[in-house]
């Protein structure tokens, strides 16, 4: 994949283009609406859902409190089971480890299981640069890869595409990456899936090295888990001789029994299914069965920085279910690319700035503001991440970081200072209201009546234009509530 999120403009600018893309808007509204409905149905039928959420959050919190211990236990369990454990501080280290392993086996291709961690470190580019093809085998990842596109959703990377577009991509691109699509391909989902199956099958049977991520890594047993819908992952995890898994350090679970909670929370939240079709677990090497060389790359890449933040660390509970994306009214209208990161939507808005750090890049700093703080994400999060709380916290981090760097305060800094000064005294507030009331009387002459008898102003030039371009502006009341209360001697109502 040659595409990269580098150079994405700040969220408001990136969103503007997406909002005008009528095809994208329709694709997203339809897809998220469908998944939302399915999720609501299967979550609604679990009586103890709230207890499950609390249990899930508690398990992840325990992991985060004792992360070094669990990681070392995981390493011991994996090593005992015949796997080789590697530690990667950042993307460059992780990529170098995977590329080195692939090269050591003299292969010029690897098959890939859908994995957010490998997207995060842009492993495919590192492999391509070393002359190794990385074939995505997840259907949606394949669509993104063939279309030289970028993923826009955690679960459904090609959610921004519809059937007709997918058919075009398959017809145009499949031939150059392997087996071509049949010339009479239609946009019937079954026909599209069959074309992908034919295309991928030869890759599964040929590949000697596979790369995966993991949904969970059990410290107690050294067991890795991949949860999927299509079975392509299962092919990659069983057919090749060598399996390399890149796993974020927050993915560790203390015991095998913890999977009980997580495997109830994840499918219902993610795809709206009671259980997903394929759950693969493997524990190191099983002689004579499956990959005979198993590597696990434990990835930090900013996660310990997130862990150091008392408010922000709850983002590391995330199990990448994408429920927050599917309910987010902002995501539904802007799509994932506007977030300029492999982690889009509400979780991306709190995870990306923490992984990258704030105060240096305007695009990253725009993400915590890419939310109306409506709270729908917190309501559906299976591990109870209070995303609005973290968003507000990160906004203050952004403001603080800029204050430290700036010699001259920004317009926003000064506006907030002025508002704070005025509003910290009732006398000053009252005076400002009287001035606004006078202005309102003048403005009322320029306005027009709205339903209910209120006078409103239309489009106003200057700083108010961001509001008034599409929304009428209420004229300040001639008499504030405070003045009315004072005038009527507090007894006329």
């Amino acid at each position, binding site marked *: 994949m040659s595409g990269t999120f580098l150079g994405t403009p700040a969220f*408001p600018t990136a969103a503007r283009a997406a909002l005008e893309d009528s095809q994208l808007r329709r694709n997203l509204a339809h897809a998220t609406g469908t998944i939302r409905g399915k999720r609501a149905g299967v979550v609604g039928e679990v009586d103890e859902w709230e207890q499950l959420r609390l249990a899930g959050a508690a398990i992840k919190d325990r992991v985060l409190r004792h992360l070094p211990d669990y990681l070392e236990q995981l390493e011991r369990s994996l090593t005992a089971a015949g796997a080789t454990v590697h530690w990667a501080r950042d993307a460059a280290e992780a990529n170098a480890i995977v590329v080195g392993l692939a090269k050591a086996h003299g292969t010029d291709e690897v098959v890939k299981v859908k994995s957010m961690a490998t997207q995060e470190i842009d492993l495919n580019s590192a492999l391509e640069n070393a002359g190794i093809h990385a074939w995505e085998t997840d259907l949606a990842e394949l669509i993104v890869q063939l279309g030289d596109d970028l993923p826009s959703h955690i679960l459904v990377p090609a959610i921004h595409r519809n059937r007709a577009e997918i058919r075009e991509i398959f017809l145009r691109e499949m031939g150059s990456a392997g087996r071509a699509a049949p010339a009479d391909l239609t946009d019937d989902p079954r026909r599209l899936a069959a074309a992908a199956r034919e295309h991928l099958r030869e890759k599964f049977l040929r590949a000697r090295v596979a790369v995966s991520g993991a949904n969970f890594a059990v410290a107690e047993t050294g067991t890795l888990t991949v949860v999927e819908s299509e079975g392509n992952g299962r092919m990659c995890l069983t057919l090749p001789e060598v399996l390399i898994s890149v796993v974020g350090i927050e993915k560790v679970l203390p015991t095998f029994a913890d999977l009980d909670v997580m495997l109830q929370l994840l499918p219902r939240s993610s795809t709206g299914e009671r259980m997903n079709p394929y759950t693969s677990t493997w524990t190191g090497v099983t002689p004579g069965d499956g990959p005979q060389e198993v590597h696990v790359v434990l990835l930090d890449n900013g996660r310990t920085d997130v862990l150091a933040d008392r408010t922000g660390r709850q983002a590391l509970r995330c199990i990448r279910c994408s429920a927050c994306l599917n309910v987010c009214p902002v995501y539904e209208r802007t799509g994932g690319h506007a977030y300029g990161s492999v982690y889009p939507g509400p979780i991306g808005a709190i995870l990306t700035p923490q992984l990258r750090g704030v105060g240096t890049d305007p695009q990253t700093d725009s993400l915590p503001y890419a939310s109306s703080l409506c709270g729908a994400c917190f309501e559906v999060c299976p591990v109870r991440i209070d995303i609005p709380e973290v968003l507000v916290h990160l*906004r203050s981090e952004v403001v603080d970081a800029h204050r430290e760097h700036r010699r001259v305060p920004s317009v926003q800094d000064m506006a907030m200072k002025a508002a704070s000064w005025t509003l910290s005294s009732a006398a000053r507030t009252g005076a400002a209201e009287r001035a606004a009331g006078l202005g309102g009387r003048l403005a009322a002459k320029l306005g027009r009546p709205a*339903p209910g008898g209120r006078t409103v102003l239309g489009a106003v030039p200057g700083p108010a234009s961001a509001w008034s371009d599409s929304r009428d502006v209420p004229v300040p009341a001639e008499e504030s509530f405070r003045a009315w209360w004072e005038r009527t001697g507090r007894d006329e109502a």
Partner: protein
Amino acid sequence: MPRVGLMITCLNDALFPDTGRAVVTLLRRLGVDVEFPAAQTCCGQPMVNTGYLDDAVPLVRNHLDAFDGCDAIVTPSGSCAGSVRHQHHLVARRSGDPGLVRGVEQAPPTYELTEYLVDVLGVTDVGAYFPHRVTYHPTCHSLRMLGVRDRPVRLLRAVRGLTLLELPGASECCGFGGTFAVKNAETSIAMGNDKAHHVRSTGAEVLVAGDNSCLMHISGLLSRQRSGVRVMHLAEVLAATEPVISGRAERAAGPHSVGSATPDARTAVTPEAVTR
């Protein structure tokens, strides 16, 4: 008598004073001697939600001073009630002033209007008369931050003459979001237009909500579209009564029965009364 302080919110004070007057009318009709502590200004939410915690500190301090001595605080805003209940401790912690942290911990309980009516006064029929077709938008903070659930709808259903029409996609955000409305104006408007479309699809004459901030955004779109739909704060609907016709006593003039034995118990305020 417990002292009940009306927290009017800065937006209502300057732009929507009719809402505050409606709350006073309504509460007095229900026998609550509400007072307006004149030192109050703003809860600080605009600063907190923009990331300016330091600039919110003097506002939180002023809020605590203004309502010192009240037994309960009532406000016609889910968003500002949420800010007081969920954000003031963050601001206090940031200030590094243990006195302010203690002040926030010991502050009187803050109720959004419908919580106060239903949970504390135990009333759903407030004796209102409003013969119009209405649809109700549950604002995000009242719904998800406070959990007011069906309280507003129960109050509306008890209003005589009122036809309540179901709003499609009711629980979806209207796109106001404070700072968001300006910082991400295009996305905010896209969300607002979808909300306005749903409102118009109901055929309602009046859109009602418990937050004038969200209503200001939706009504700005509705009036720009010349939709002819009016917006009103829930308090204004609940305060409305029949015009007095000669020979007929005005209904709902006196205090209503409020489901508990003694006047004191009626307004006895305990933090347990609200799910925090």
